[in-house]
């Protein structure tokens, strides 16, 4: 496909529509990152479809110069499934948020992941409902004060990447809206055949400002961000610290960067991936491709089975309607 696809620039991927997010919203940064990444993927605009649900992030497709479908709340994975099964040549991106993907659409997120539909799922997690003016979301931390929880929320949040891993996702990654590494994460997600789940920490400047500041602030970034790379040691704090396995307690521990026990990142190791996703206070936040272990995609399995079931059979409609035990009426048997 690459050699046939015209070379594009980021500008070619921007639609003529005025972008209508709040000034300073993290969504702008993600939009720019995606538009910058697309030319590097060697895909054609007409073969690309952005599908979204409802929420601030779900306006995204209107701003891309590809095909786009802004659907209904929580259901984007179901639309994407129909689109991909109908035309597997299309490159399908699902744009969703924490409420869209994990509250109203939790069911569809689970099933698109376990089926392993070939698509990229970008979950913009801002831990709040923005479009409906600031209610707490399923990823909001306990105690979040919002119009619907004036005394603080009491329910425990879901961890998006754990949900994805538990649903059978074969690619789980994390990025940050304004971080320079986001395009690399997007490229890895695109390169993966199957459902690629990417959680993007996205700052809502109006209703939940700085909710991720504890690890995104420049001053703490080195100490609090662990950018994973396959085949490389899990180092952070400018290489001064690393992660090792506490074998007795079967959990992760922080050790000195030069300690021989620092783990080399193997994205296929699901057990370690689960630990990386749920690292407690005092640990850095795992970012980049946390887990990747490709498996056959849903649409390829469907196509293969359809072809096998159809092979050797003729699509003869007349024969089909004439099937079963039939009888011939020669002439009217009797007159009444």
């Amino acid at each position, binding site marked *: 496909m690459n050699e046939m696809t015209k070379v594009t620039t980021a500008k070619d991927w921007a639609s003529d529509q005025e972008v209508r997010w709040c000034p300073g919203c993290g969504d702008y940064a993600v939009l720019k990152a995606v538009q910058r990444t697309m030319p590097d993927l060697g895909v054609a605009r007409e073969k690309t479809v952005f599908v979204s649900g409802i929420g601030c992030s779900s306006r995204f497709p209107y701003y891309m110069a590809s095909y786009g479908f802004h659907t209904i709340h929580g259901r984007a994975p179901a639309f994407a499934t129909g689109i991909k099964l*109908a035309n597997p040549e299309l490159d399908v991106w699902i744009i969703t948020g924490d409420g869209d993907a994990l509250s109203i659409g939790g069911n569809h997120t689970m099933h698109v992941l376990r089926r392993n539909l070939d698509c990229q799922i970008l979950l913009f997690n801002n831990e709040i409902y923005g479009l409906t003016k600031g209610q707490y979301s399923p990823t909001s931390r306990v105690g979040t004060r919002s119009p619907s929880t004036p005394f603080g929320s009491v329910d425990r949040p879901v961890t998006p990447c754990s949900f994805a891993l538990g649903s059978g996702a074969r690619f789980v990654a994390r990025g940050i809206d304004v971080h320079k590494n986001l395009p690399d994460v997007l490229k890895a997600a695109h390169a993966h055949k199957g459902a690629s789940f990417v959680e993007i920490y996205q700052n809502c400047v109006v209703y939940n400002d700085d909710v991720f500041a504890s690890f995104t602030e420049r001053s703490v970034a080195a100490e609090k961000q662990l950018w994973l790379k396959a085949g490389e040691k899990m180092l952070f704090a400018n290489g001064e610290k690393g992660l090792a396995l506490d074998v007795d307690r079967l959990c992760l521990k922080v050790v000195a960067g030069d300690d021989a026990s620092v783990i080399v990142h193997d994205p296929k190791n699901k057990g370690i991936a689960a630990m990386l996703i749920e690292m407690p206070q005092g640990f850095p936040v795992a970012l980049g491709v946390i887990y990747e272990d490709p498996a056959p995609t849903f649409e390829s399995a469907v196509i293969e089975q359809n072809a096998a079931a159809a092979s050797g059979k003729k699509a003869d409609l007349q024969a089909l309607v004439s099937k079963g035990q039939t009888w011939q009426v020669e002439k009217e048997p009797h007159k009444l």
Partner: protein
Amino acid sequence: MATATHLITEDEAASHSSAEAVVVRFAGDSGDGMQLTGGQFTLSTALAGNDLATFPDFPAEIRAPQGTTFGVSAFQINFGSTAIETAGDQPDVLIAMNPAALKVNVDQLREGGLIIADEGEFTARNLAKAGYEKSPLEDDSLAKWQLVHFNISQLTLDAVKPFGLGNKEALRCKNMWTLGLALWMFDRDRQPIVDWLKQKFAKAPELAEANIAALNAGHAYGETVEMGAPFKQHHIAAAPAEPGLYRTVTGAESLALGLVAGAKLAGLQMFFGGYPITPASALLHHLSRLKEFGITTFQAEDEIAAICSAIGASYAGQLGITSSSGPGIALKTEALGLAIMTELPLIVVNSQRGGPSTGLPTKTEQSDLYQAVYGRNADAPLPVIAARSPADAFECAIEAVRIATRYMTPVMLLTDGYIANAAEPWKVPDMSGYEPFPVNFFEQRPAEGEGVMPYARNDDLARPWIKPGTEGLEHRIGGIEKAPGSGNIDYSPAAHQEMTDTRAAKVNKVAESIPDQDVCIGREGAKLAVVGWGSTFGPIHQAVRRSIDRGLDVAHVHIRHIWPMPSNMSALLKGFDRIIVPEMNTGQLKTVLRDQFLVDAKPLNKVSGHPFRIAEIEAAIEQALG
């Protein structure tokens, strides 16, 4: 005609012509295989050239406790030498495999009708489970009917003894013994059943042989045992029919075939997204076996995903179809609004059942007409079509595909549990006689400096269907109100007014390409019109025919296009003095007719879970004209 003449007294016989039709009801425990027995009896009846209609009546429980009244499963068939349009008002023959089956069904048997009971099952325990204090076979409680009973269980055990089956397995052959007896009673050929058994039990030949032995034994029993006057062999002549090739078909089958045909006539691949629900699942089952016709079936995680995936497939250029029953349609409703807003073709099949909520999952009702016509938030019109019979579902499916693709709109196709499960003979259509209606995807790139116009309109007010993958036509659609033409987000008052008006006008335009409403029997301008829709066709038609025979000035109008209605409907309805509307709901079409045409349509309603009886409608006709 659904009244039997073969069991009448000699006096009555003198005043009647030869036997025309018989209604037989097989009833037993849900584990007794009554649906299978009925199905095979139907096949042999069709092969004998009788016209027929069936009514499978089974409980919602898969295997209710044995011997209980709520575990009774029944299969009714009406067959005859004249046109048969209903499963029959009252059975002439009831075959009761246990006390519970007798208890539940006997009151529906016509007076003087024949009961055949398996006395082997009338044990103290089974009698108690059915709520009988003593055996009805031995007191006078069944005096108004003719009763014959013998030990079918023991006779079956004797017949299959040589095959060395266990007691439980041997007793399972009871239904074949009973079928053998029924085949003898109505002079049917056993060979097709023998062939079917051999095929069904190809991997267990001893079971095939045991079942065949039971079938033969039941048949031989009828032939040799002297049971007296009521129990004798009858010959029902073949029904007159147009020459041609025939088969039996259930509504679910013909609907599947019609959708395949419709997709082919439109030149489209089909995508079917479904979620299991009674009584709609059969459609998913049928289509999932037809991969060679370019069909992808997808069992989604829920009803919502089923319709959303179908809309996604339509967006990508296939014919998206989804199907459910009322509760599932309710879940799909928000997505249906999106299909209306984005103006994508989509077929939504609703196999109606009794409700609300879970209601009566296995019983029939036609109470989702309001849901189909009005049941969405905001102004969200869509065309609605209703099938009247299993065979008619084929034509309706093709019509639904034609409308959906020509007008770029979702179409609701109404059927019901009765149509879906019932079987009737069907003259195999000649597919070369159907005019194709190929879809033309829009591929023309806009001129330099001009934008893509996904919401441009043709003469039908339909918008172009642009497939993703088409270079130069990249655009975005969604559920937000949009500017006419460009489809860009536009909440302005003028845009919403124009788009709302256009969406409604487009759906109304469908009336321009559908046939005028006809009167199927009786005359235009009659004193009384009986107006119906859906599966009430059979009983209404027979009731009107009988009333006309008796000299009454009455006509039958049966509506396929519920929304929009044919252009002549107003004038047609206003030509009748009176209108009654029989419906298996509390008066839904009646409301639409009153609303649309300001006519004084009077309701005739029934929501018992059973179809109308002809006599009920006849009585209403008489009353209306009286």
